[in-house]
Structure formats: C-alpha cells, structure tokens
C-alpha cells in the first residue's frame, strides 16, 4: 500500500505540518454561514486578504444555483444545512469503529489493509503513524529547493507565491462547488517546483496528511516553474469512509513554459459520499499536463479534469477510468481548451457499469479562432455488465479554426459472449474470466499507476466482479 509518512505530534513548524488544534474555542456545528467562515480563517491565522476571499466566496456560493445539466436527482438530495463544513481532529476522534459500515470492514479484510490504516480510512482517527522514510524524502526536496507542504502551511510560509497564483485557474465564481471550497477550504497540498528541477519521486498526499476536516474541502495548488517536472499522487484504492457526505475539492495546476505536471488520483469513497471536484490546469508554451484519474467509489462523483492550453505547443492528456455499481453515478469527463496554435490533447476514458450503476462522460474540446495546427483525440469506451446498468456520453466539440485535426469516438457495449467463452475455455470460471476482461479493459490506465496501487486496484476489481456473478 502507499508509503506512510510520520506526522509529528509535537507541532514542528520546520516541516510545515501541524495540526491546528489550537486552544481556540471553536464549536463544530452543522451548516455554513459567515460566522463559521470567519472562525475557520481566524483559527488558521490567515492574512486578511484570504479572509476577505473566503467571505466573498461564501456569498457567491449562496447566490449560485446547482448546475442544471447535472444529475439533479442525486444532487438534489444534498441538504446543505445538515453538513459539518469544518471539523478539527479532536471533533473527528469522537467517532467509534462501530459506526463504520460492515461492507467496508469486509473489504479491508479481503485487501489485507493494516490495522492502523483501517482506522484512518474508516474515518475513526485523524492521524496515523508512519515511517521515517518520509523524512529523507523531505531532505531531498529541500536540497532541490522544492516546496511541498499542506495548503495551510503554504499560505503561511510562502504567502507571496500563493497569493500570486491562488484562484487564478479556478476562481470562486467558476461554479457553485468551487465557490463553496473557496469559502471553507482546509488542507490540500501546496507544491512549488523551481525552474529546471525534476522531482523524480512521486509526491504523495499521504506524505502530508494532517487530516483536518478529513479531506472534505481540500485545496491543492501546484506550480511548476519553467522546465520543471513533478508527479503528484493522491487518494487510494482502498475504500474510504467519511461521515461527512459532501466533499468538494479544488485542484489548480500551473505548468509554466516547458514544465511537466502529472497528477494521479484514485478515489474510492464509500457510497454515501458526494464527491464534487473542480480540477483544472493551465499549460503555457510547450508545457505538458497529464491527469490520470481513477473513480471507483462514491454515491455521485462529478469531476472533469481540464487543461487550458494557452501557450503554443502545449499538451494536455486525460486518462480516466470510472467504475459504478449499484447506487453509484460516476459523472466524469474532461475539458480541453485550445487557445494557442499547435497544441495537442488526448482524452481516454474507460468506464464500467454494473448492478444498476451509472457512468457518464461529459466532455468539451474547444478550439479558439486562429489556433491552427491543433490536434485532439478523444476516445471513450463504456462497458455495461448487465441490463440494469446505464452509460451516457455527452461530448461536445466547438471548433473555430480550420487547420486542425479533431477526432472523437465513443463505444458502448457489453462483455462479448465470444470473448467470455474464449477466456473460459482456457479453464477459468466465469468470475475469473469477467475479472480478466475488465482488468484488460482498464489496462491502459492501470499500467500508469505505481505498482502498489495497480496491484490493489486489480484485487478490488476481482472483489467487485465476484459480487456480479450469481
């Protein structure tokens, strides 16, 4: 499983990780208003401009409607007044192991998740022990001049850099949920890579988790200066439970000239969670941004990782998988905006629906006038495992330049009988055969993951397929 990082219980400023459980008399309560926003900002000791920013964002959140094109049947069930928008570690620790759903515990068993990690994934503990490996990684990063901390620390210690880039890629007014995040964000990662520096080891969210608010409204900002490279990984394949059902993260990536950012996510939220994420990158001249996105959990995920290519020669890639079983809706996709000539985008989306699950692909490829030499290729494939499941595709292309090459293709089908028969004739059971076929279907994605994630994902798929037959 993912490497575990040691969080220091005594608040060590040097590493930028501290649990902000101050003596402030904050009382966790449900609902959101300016009072709560004010308290969050004061507790974090934020500069005035961030406080103002949060308040303004809250007003925008109140004013904006839900997106009319979305799955309103699911979204409409969110009761905004019945949610905790901020909880400190001490508030979270009130939960007991008994509350964690049985099926999650069973999956932990089957996957062989270590005890301490189970408590963390089950939302029962806010911190967890980890190894010293993390310390040496930090040393290397410092030597290279790379900044990597949680977002709160980033704001505190590198206010200038943060202020210059914060909310320039995803402004609060972008949509209702980016407005919400902008008002109550807490945690998330801040990464700044100096010009020309390659960070060879993937940076992982686990390295800096301090569990404030249980990752509910994370805000991540990654800035790659010209010619630099960084790979960031977040999430995990193991099922994750949180009693707070609304999660709305914002991730902003800035790839300056010639820089390369790869961002890998796997989410496997329990099926009570609404996971509404705004992820967007801006790619300057000859920059390259890759989103590798795995969605295998949650009641409803709405996530459309995007790349705005504003410099000539920029490139954006999205490789995503979605798996939806009963009661789940994966509403994913991508937006590729070509605002400069000779830019390229490739979107590969693969989804599997089973047992009444629903997957949707929603995408946009937009080419502005004057952007010649643009190439874009979109490929969406959906596999329906049974008659109860559903798949929808809504891709849009708006092309205003002439000398471009735009292609889109989508296919929906079920596991072929001939395919199944062939594989089973090699001595496998139907479950094994189905598992193999689905694994093969997801293979282009799985091979881009670090080994431990890939192994666990395959095991998870096997578990899911077991439930699907007989």
């Amino acid at each position, binding site marked *: 499983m993912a490497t575990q990082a040691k969080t220091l219980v005594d608040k060590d400023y040097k590493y930028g990780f501290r649990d902000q459980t101050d003596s402030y008399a904050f009382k966790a309560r449900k609902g959101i208003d300016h009072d709560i926003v004010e308290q969050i900002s004061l507790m974090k000791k934020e500069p005035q401009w961030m406080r103002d920013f949060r308040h303004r964002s809250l007003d925008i959140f109140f004013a904006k409607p839900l997106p009319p094109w979305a799955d309103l049947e699911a979204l409409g069930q969110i009761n905004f007044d019945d949610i905790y928008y901020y909880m400190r570690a001490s508030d979270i620790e009130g939960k007991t192991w008994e509350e964690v759903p049985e099926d999650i515990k069973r999956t932990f068993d089957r996957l062989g998740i270590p005890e301490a990690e189970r408590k963390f994934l089950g939302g029962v503990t806010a911190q967890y022990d980890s190894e010293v490996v993390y310390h040496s990684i930090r040393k290397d990063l410092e030597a290279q001049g790379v900044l990597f901390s949680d977002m709160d620390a980033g704001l505190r210690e590198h206010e200038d850099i943060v202020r210059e880039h914060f909310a*320039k*890629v995803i*402004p609060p*007014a972008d*949509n209702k949920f980016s407005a919400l995040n902008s008002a109550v964000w807490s945690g998330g990662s801040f990464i700044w890579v100096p010009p020309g520096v390659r960070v060879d080891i993937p940076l992982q969210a686990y390295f800096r988790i301090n569990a404030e608010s249980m990752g509910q409204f994370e805000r991540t900002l990654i800035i790659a200066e010209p010619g630099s490279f960084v790979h960031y990984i977040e999430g995990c394949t193991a099922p994750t439970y949180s009693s707070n059902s609304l999660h709305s993260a914002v991730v902003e990536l800035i790839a300056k000239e010639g820089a390369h950012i790869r961002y890998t996510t796997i989410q496997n939220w329990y099926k009570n969670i609404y996971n509404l994420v705004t992820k*967007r990158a*801006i790619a300057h001249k000859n920059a390259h941004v890759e989103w590798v996105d795995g969605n295998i959990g949650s009641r409803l995920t709405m996530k459309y990782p995007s790349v*705005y290519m504003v410099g000539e020669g920029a490139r954006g890639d999205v490789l995503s998988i979605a798996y939806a079983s009963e009661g789940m809706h994966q509403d994913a996709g991508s937006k590729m905006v070509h605002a400069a000539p000779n830019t390229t985008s490739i979107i590969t989306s693969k989804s599997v629906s089973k047992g009444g699950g629903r997957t949707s692909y929603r995408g946009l490829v937009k080419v*502005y006038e004057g952007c010649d030499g643009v190439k874009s290729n979109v490929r969406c494939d959906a596999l329906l495992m049974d008659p109860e499941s559903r798949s929808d595709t809504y891709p849009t292309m708006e092309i205003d330049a002439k000398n471009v090459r735009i292609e889109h293709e989508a296919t929906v089908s079920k596991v072929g009988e001939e395919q199944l028969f062939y594989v089973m004739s090699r001595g496998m059971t139907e479950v094994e055969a189905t598992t193999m076929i689905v694994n093969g279907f997801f293979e282009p994605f799985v091979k881009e993951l670090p080994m431990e994630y890939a192994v666990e994902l395959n095991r998870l798929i096997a578990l899911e397929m077991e439930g699907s037959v007989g």
Partner: protein
Amino acid sequence: MPTQTVDVASVDEIPEGKVKTVTADSLRIALCNYGGTIYAIDDVCTHDGGPLGQGELEGKEIECPRHGARFDVTSGQVTALPAVRPVRTYPVHVSNGRIFVDLSS
C-alpha cells in the same frame, strides 16, 4: 485611419473603483475607474460573450460575475481563467470633465 472619438459620459459618473457601461455606436463599452484614471474595454467577457461591465473592479482587474474570469483593464490581458482571450481596450481621453473613447480600428 481617422479616429472616431465619441463622448460617452461625464467623469463624475464613475467614482474611483467603479464601472459604468455605455453604448457608443452600437458597441457596448465598460468604463472603469482605476486609481483615478478611466479605462475603456468591451463590455463583453471573452469567455461566454455575456456582459463584463456588471462585474466588480478589484484594483486594476475586473472580474466577470458569471464565472470569475478576470481582465487587467489597463491592457485587456487575461489575469484569471476561464477566459483565455484578452478583452478589447479603447484609448480614452478626458477633456473638460467629459470622457472620450476612440472607437477606430
């Protein structure tokens, strides 16, 4: 190209930090007062084509109210997504308390 300068408003109508939209020759223009100087830009957000002048000024940036795109009113350049194309600017000169916008080119 001959200049086509139009008297569009009085300076008094636009306090510092405020925006006023006017129509000149069937073009919609947003007049922005940044630091005491008046700047004129198209009242059209290059992201969704809707009015920009309804937005607020923060320093020298105007923010489109619908999705948060920002433009530097002194140059027209984009300072925040989701806009990617700059907004058109017009030369302005003030004379006798009246604002004149040059619509040519």
